[in-house]
């Protein structure tokens, strides 16, 4: 994945900094609470939501379980419709393919539709190194690009910015990239949107190469689908002469009909709308309408490693709606940057360690970035059991074991940092297997209870820095039960 995040601190440290940032906390709280309530209303409108969710899950599961067949079918359909299909095993290869295609056109700038796949592979940086300037055209991506910032949300990458901050970024940075922001720009969302419209207009009108991802690819027809709101997607998909779409191999659905599920569940889960303002579908190229050349770059970059994990593969069902981020109490307080990946939040915590592995400190810490409260699973429109995968990945971190990395079978070693915890867990498991030993321990604790502090020194401060410890009772329950014969005797 992108090198942008190399050297990130582990999640707990990064999250601590975010928790202590009052502006960030307020921005995230406001945005996530706004969308939570709206999503709940949009979903409640559909009496058959559970059926749609189950169908979405099964369509994706079936596709993943027969992905080789559907990839070949998709390749044939896209090629038959006039497109060219490329295969990229990893980020470097995808970047090389895209840079090569852009150079063939003789152009030195491209306009981009917001795309997680191109964020993941660090395409903009790779193109820059080849002398090609990539303009992000989604409003939030523009804010991030102009602010020399990193995305912090899948759907709304600038969610960590409030309107005042956005106004300042536009006012100070737009001029360096093209048309400056209007004089006396206010911080009303309508004015900010207008400023983006004016700034990007000239870039859209002169663009010769567009780069996109896709929300869905239909194997039987070779159709690609982009779901968006602003119209920047339509600009990039229809005005340029060449269109290059970089899409993860898991984005396939078998049939045209399958879209009837996702075009209902995605908008309501993402922006809480009955339907997003614009959805574009295209199948290869169309004579005298839109790009004359269409290239599809199918991206693996760790997806087949996730596919090899029977528990973890369900993460590949994800349709990138962000509902799990918006509902997550940890994301709300830690913010997206703490996850050290373009995929933050609950889905990022299960996707990133599968795509990148668990070798780095940040990636090994991600499966623990959750209280397992289950709100993410509840809202997921394709029913990814995120807590189940989190726990599974925790097991991989502490126990190691067989996994697949870049297509090769490997045996992972247990993570070093967990040695003390592992010993404690084993000791506890032993004690719980020997009730008499457990009882002795409980009694010792009760007898010495007046000596127990309400706060702990050393590592125990992780608990008692903010919370008092409960008082140890005079007598554990089991002693009371024995003494009173289950309460039949006096108290």
């Amino acid at each position: 994945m992108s090198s942008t995040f190399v050297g990130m601190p582990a999640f707990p440290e990064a999250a601590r900094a975010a928790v202590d940032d009052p502006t960030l906390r307020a921005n995230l709280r406001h945005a996530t609470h706004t969308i939570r309530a709206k999503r709940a209303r949009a979903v409640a409108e559909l009496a058959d939501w559970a059926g749609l969710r189950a169908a979405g899950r099964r369509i994706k599961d079936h596709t993943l379980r027969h992905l080789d067949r559907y990839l070949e079918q998709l390749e044939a359909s896209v090629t038959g419709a006039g497109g060219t299909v490329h295969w990229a095993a990893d980020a470097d290869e995808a970047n090389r393919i895209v840079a090569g295609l852009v150079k063939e056109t003789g152009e030195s700038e491209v306009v981009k539709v917001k795309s997680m796949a191109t964020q993941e592979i660090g395409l903009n940086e790779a193109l820059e190194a080849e002398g090609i300037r990539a303009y992000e055209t989604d409003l939030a991506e523009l804010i991030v690009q102009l602010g020399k910032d990193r995305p912090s949300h899948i759907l709304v990458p600038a969610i960590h910015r409030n309107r005042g901050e956005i106004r300042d970024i536009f006012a100070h940075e737009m001029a360096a990239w093209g048309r400056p922001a209007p004089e006396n720009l206010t911080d009303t969302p309508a004015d900010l949107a207008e400023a983006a419209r004016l700034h990007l207009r000239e870039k859209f009108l002169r663009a010769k190469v567009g780069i996109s991802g896709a929300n869905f690819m239909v194997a039987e027809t070779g159709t690609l689908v982009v779901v968006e709101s602003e119209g920047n997607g339509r600009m990039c998909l229809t005005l340029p002469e060449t269109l290059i779409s970089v899409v993860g191999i898991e984005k396939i659905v078998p049939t045209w009909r399958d879209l009837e599920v996702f075009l209902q569940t995605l908008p309501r889960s993402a922006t809480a709308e009955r339907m997003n303002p614009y959805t574009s579908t295209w199948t290869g190229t169309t004579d005298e309408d839109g790009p004359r050349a269409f290239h599809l770059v199918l991206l693996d970059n760790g997806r087949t490693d996730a596919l090899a994990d029977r528990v973890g593969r369900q993460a590949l069902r994800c349709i990138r709606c962000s509902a799990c981020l918006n509902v997550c109490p940890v994301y709300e307080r830690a913010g997206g940057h703490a996850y050290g990946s373009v995929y933050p939040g609950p889905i990022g915590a299960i996707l990133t360690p599968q795509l990148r592995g668990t070798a780095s400190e940040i990636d090994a810490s991600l499966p623990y970035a959750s209280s397992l409260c289950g709100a993410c699973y509840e809202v997921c429109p394709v029913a990814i059991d995120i807590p189940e995968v989190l726990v599974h990945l925790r097991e991989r971190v502490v126990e190691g074991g067989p996994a697949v990395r870049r297509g090769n079978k490997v045996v992972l070693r247990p993570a070093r940092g967990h040695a003390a915890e592992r010993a404690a867990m084993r000791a506890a498991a032993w004690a719980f297997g020997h009730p008499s030993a457990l009882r002795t321990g409980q009694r010792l604790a009760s007898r010495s209870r007046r000596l127990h502090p309400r706060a702990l020194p050393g590592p125990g401060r992780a608990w008692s820095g903010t919370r008092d410890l409960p008082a140890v009772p005079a007598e554990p329950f089991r002693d009371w039960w024995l003494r009173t014969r289950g309460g039949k005797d006096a108290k």
Partner: protein
Amino acid sequence: MNSRERILGRVRRALADVPPDERPYEEAVPRDYLREHGKRTVEETVELLAENLADYRAIVHRADAEELPLLVMRLLAAHGSQEAVVPPELPPWWTAAADLVRIHDRAADTPQRLDRVGSVVTGCAVAIAETGTVVLDGSPDQGRRRISLVPDHHICVVRVPEQVVASVPQALERLDPTRPLTWISGPSATSDIELDRVEGVHGPRTLEVILLDG
């Protein structure tokens, strides 16, 4: 080994646990969801379309064949458009009353040229009541995708009731996937600032939908 073979090989190895005789697609995917939400008369479905279009800030009008040319004239004049793009087979009588320079949808026109045009008038392929959506499929009464994108004012005529369906599943049944499709639900909008929805970004900032009673 090329990357195609490498990736397909990885996929096949990853799926070693999948039995070869697994249930086929038709059986594996239950369709326990509705074809449409609620039972409505044809007129109620049209009313729902109007309501949902308006909910996302499209401006909705109703007209019969007699009223349509005057309505189109009025809307173009109100927008101050002297020029409007028209697709090749837009029924000429729709714009007959308007005192207008008709810019024909031609492949040779540059996006910059289109950007100087105030309005565009199109038909549509289908409209979806439950979501307040009109779908364009590039037919000759709708034109190339870009003509309904670059001008800032889009007038879209929906023939009711025949072009109106209740739901997304019903719309997909009617649409041809080989055509380039544009689904439009209200004017362009964004939720990118504080996840609050505001209308008016890159696409037409004014979407007017005329429900043409047949």
